[in-house]
């Protein structure tokens, strides 16, 4: 399963719920305002870091760059471009967008 989260973890609980319910081995793609969670110093950074043990965490590069965050990505988080986004969707049999 590919989980997609698009809201800031400081504003919504979608990332927290996603990390709680994503099964081991699943992929989580952070896009739009959700990418802040994958940056150094963010309040959600520790949760993301811990989640990399059981989940594959991805963040969308263009969304990081648009927020001035390209140089602050946490270790263990994979940055993908739009092509990588398409690949992730194609590789997984199903995906869930957390609203």
């Amino acid at each position: 399963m590919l989980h997609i989260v698009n809201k800031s973890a400081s504003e919504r609980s979608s990332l927290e719920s996603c990390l709680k319910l994503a099964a081991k081995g699943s992929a989580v793609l952070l896009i739009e305002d959700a990418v802040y969670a994958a940056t150094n110093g963010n309040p959600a950074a520790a949760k993301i870091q811990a989640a990399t043990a059981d989940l594959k965490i991805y963040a969308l590069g263009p969304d990081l760059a648009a927020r001035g965050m390209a140089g602050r990505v946490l270790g263990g988080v994979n940055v993908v471009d739009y092509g990588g986004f398409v690949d992730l969707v194609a590789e997984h049999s199903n995906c869930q967008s957390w609203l």
Partner: protein
Amino acid sequence: MSDMDMEDDGSGIVKKFMFLNRKAPHGTVYALEGLEVVLITAAFDQDVSLVFTDDGVYQLMKGIDTKGIEVKDFSKTYRALEGYDIEKLYVDRSSMEARGLSEEDLIVDVNVLSDDEMKNLMAEQDVVISF
């Protein structure tokens, strides 16, 4: 007194306006729309304060590059605010530090306030508008 004089009296009222920015840029339209309203308010010669708190602090990040998401990079506009006599920019220290940021990470010079200082600033406003 002519009609013209009465109009002048009405337009001479100056109120203290605070614009409270609490949202990250791009994910929603709030940050951009808020900036537009700030510029309009300044055109009416009002006393404008701009506050960035919670995820709103992210609006002021240096190094923003929006080419990849094909939207306007309005972060440069914050640097032009001075030209519109908007010089009161405030950032909440606790929000900034909670995100691992410091003043050096921000695109403009700001006044960094403690929670108590922010509380007092908010209390003295005539109008507070949230974005």
